[in-house]
């Protein structure tokens, strides 16, 4: 019997570490014949911590939302084989569908193997593609296979991977670099973190194949500093690969030698832009460079460099093993293969979703994600983070395809998919992203530095009820000039959240400006809480739950909210059993 505890960052945050320790202690003290091990993130984040029990015949019992208190019943189950002991914890058939409806390529090992054991990766076809490449394919043949697959950059822009590799290969120079962009900065996106934490060798193998194809002498992974566990696991994986001869000198006995190292970022969203990332790698402020020259020609230390995202590399070994055509058989005319999304927000079942391109947004949000939580109404989905946009509910039949998503005004993006219900104010959402880009703008070009600031000020005014006639037009004008004038991708796409919300939710902007109302009831400056004297029973619950003691009143007498003290958290409204708290 084998027991796997899912220990990705999400699982650990939900308490998986404690569950593992408790299981380990009991298994050891009772000398049970069980192999306990750690695995990465299976992607069912909403059910963490997850414990998978594999019987010797390969049958899987998946237990979800396991806490320390449940450990005793798991031990009982192991000893007696009586499934009743853990019945309450077994994953429901409905939840099983979350995974059954997915097609996993980039995530194929996630939550299945132990990311800290190279042998488990090797046993599941690991390093097979690298062996094939080094022993039987020329660099040109590798690039050709990637071309056949139609693989495009998964970081968001969707540029054909083979084209970048080919350009870097053809670039003159002995010294070339292959870089992995693991600076996953979009708020609400954690696909790359999951891949590195759960399957680091898959990234290493994909990068080595890329390094062989372009003739890079060194491979570098630039990882966000906010991902300590990913850095730790990748370090260990690199050490193991070196030890086994998959990295270092004369890999697999061939004359191919490569080194790989990790560089931790220091917290700057703009470093996800490839030239800013290069500046940061060189120990500078992460400010983008003018393009051209492109990195393929002049990148890291002005040498030819190729930069791809984690998910892009995570597909490479599979493509070499299964052929480019197999990959290209999935998807649409313009978008091939699968894409990983981080499904979050007001969704019932949130987590990592990998599906073939060409499915609809509805498929992801409703069939896999189970729709909206708490029976509320689906309003919009935000894709592509601060560079992307909000797609309204009525367009949920849009296909997952670079061009189709682009046509809505949003982008495919790196995979953040934040679902919103009717309690989310779209003006406030736009403000949230502008606040983000304003803080993260590196300051190099005027359009981005000052333009986003001015936009932010207007949005702030509108959400505070101080919007005026002409604000919408001014916003639109600023959007266009920033798009046209900004130097890098961050600035050029920064207006997207505003443009898409203006396009689909203009009435909400108008309600804020003209009627001084927030239809979603989210912009606190436009709300006032009060207690209906006729409905209030004086139960005191609201005053107990008020975090700032703004509610006064004796038992069984009508309570009053002190408007000056009130922070409009809405706790009182949520706890009142008599519907006596009003918000207008």
């Amino acid at each position, binding site marked *: 019997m084998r027991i796997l505890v899912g220990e990705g*960052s*999400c699982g*650990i*945050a*939900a308490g998986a570490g404690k569950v593992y320790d408790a299981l380990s202690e009991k298994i050891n003290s009772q000398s049970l014949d069980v192999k306990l091990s750690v695995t990465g993130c299976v992607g069912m*984040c*909403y059910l*963490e911590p997850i414990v998978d029990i594999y019987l010797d015949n390969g049958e899987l019992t998946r237990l979800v939302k396991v806490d320390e208190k449940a450990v005793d019943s798991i031990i009982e189950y192991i000893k007696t084989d009586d499934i009743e002991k853990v019945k309450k914890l077994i994953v429901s058939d409905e939840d099983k569908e979350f995974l059954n409806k997915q097609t996993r390529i980039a995530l194929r090992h996630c939550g299945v193997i132990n990311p800290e054991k190279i042998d488990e990766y090797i046993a599941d076809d690991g390093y097979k593609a690298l062996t094939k490449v080094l022993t039987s394919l020329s660099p040109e043949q590798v690039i050709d296979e990637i071309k056949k697959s139609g693989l495009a950059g998964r970081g968001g822009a969707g540029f054909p991977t083979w084209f970048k590799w080919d350009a870097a290969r053809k670039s003159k120079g002995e010294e070339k670099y292959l870089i992995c962009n693991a600076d996953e*900065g*979009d*708020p*609400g*996106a*954690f696909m790359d*973190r999951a891949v590195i934490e759960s399957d680091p060798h898959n990234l290493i193998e994909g990068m080595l194949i890329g390094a062989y194809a372009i003739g890079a002498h060194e491979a570098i992974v630039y990882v966000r*500093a*906010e*991902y300590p566990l990913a850095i730790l696991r990748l370090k260990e994986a690199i050490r193991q690969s070196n030890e086994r001869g998959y990295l270092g000198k004369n890999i697999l006995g061939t004359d191919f030698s490569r080194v790989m190292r990790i*560089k*931790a*970022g*220091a*917290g*700057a*969203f703009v470093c996800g832009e490839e030239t800013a990332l290069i500046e*940061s*790698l*060189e*120990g*500078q*402020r*992460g400010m983008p460079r003018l393009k051209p020259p492109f990195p393929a020609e002049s990148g890291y*230390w002005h040498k030819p460099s190729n930069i791809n995202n984690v998910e892009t590399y995570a597909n490479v070994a599979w493509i070499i093993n299964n052929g480019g055509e197999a990959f290209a058989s999935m998807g649409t005319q313009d978008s091939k293969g699968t894409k990983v999304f*981080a499904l*979050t*927000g*007001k969704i019932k079942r*949130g*987590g990592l979703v990998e599906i073939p391109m060409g499915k609809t947004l509805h498929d992801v949000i409703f069939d896999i994600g189970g729709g909206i939580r708490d029976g509320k109404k689906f309003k919009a989905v*935000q894709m592509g*983070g601060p560079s992307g946009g909000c797609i309204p509910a009525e367009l949920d039949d849009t296909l997952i395809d670079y061009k189709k998503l682009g046509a809505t005004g949003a982008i495919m993006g790196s995979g*953040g998919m*934040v679902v*919103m219900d009717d309690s*989310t104010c779209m003006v406030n*959402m736009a403000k*949230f992203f502008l606040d*983000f880009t304003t803080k993260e703008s*590196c300051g190099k070009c005027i359009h981005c530095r000052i333009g986003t600031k001015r936009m932010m000020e207007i949005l702030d005014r509108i959400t505070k009820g101080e919007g005026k006639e002409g604000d919408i037009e001014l916003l639109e004008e600023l959007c266009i000039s920033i798009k046209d004038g900004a130097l890098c991708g961050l600035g050029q796409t920064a207006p997207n959240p505003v443009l898409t919300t203006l396009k689909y939710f203009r009435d909400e902007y108008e309600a804020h400006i003209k009627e001084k109302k927030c239809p979603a009831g989210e912009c606190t400056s436009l709300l006032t809480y009060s207690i209906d004297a006729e409905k209030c029973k004086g139960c005191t619950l609201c005053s107990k*739950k008020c*975090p*700032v003691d703004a509610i006064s009143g004796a038992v069984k007498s009508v309570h009053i909210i002190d408007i000056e003290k009130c*922070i*409009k*958290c*809405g*706790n009182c409204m949520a706890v009142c059993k008599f519907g006596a708290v009003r918000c207008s």
Partner: protein
Amino acid sequence: MSVNANNRVNLSLLNGVIQEYKSVKGSLITILQNAQDIYGYLPHEVIEYIAKETCIPAARVMGVATFYTQFRFQPVGKHLIMLCQGTACHVNGSNKILDAITAELGISDGQTTEDGLFTIKTVACLGCCSLSPVMMINEKTYGRLTTDKAVKIIRDLRGEKK
């Protein structure tokens, strides 16, 4: 640069790091990260010392350090509260959590309480979106927060000291 009132910054702790990275081109950020690990923040003396040892002008060292959000120039409180501002947390009400915590502590974002117990800092996405809204205090993650849950966590931590 002014001399810090606290003269006890032991610069020799940095020597190992500087020796290791001094001759490796492009290592300034790595050196700064190591320095912050040692001192908990980047005191002025440390910035000047790194500049002198690496022959990089102090203004440039400072320029790089201030560009990245990871670097701090003031010591932080005993409990560093990092409140996630990711999209999922935002949609699930992280602003209300921030309001409740700042009201409870009487400080605003980025500040430290007078007793040196708490620092509150809003941070970019922590990546625990399914547990949103989320905060991390001294490496421990607290998920599915409500305003009163957040305030209770702070009060419990404060109780620890007394």
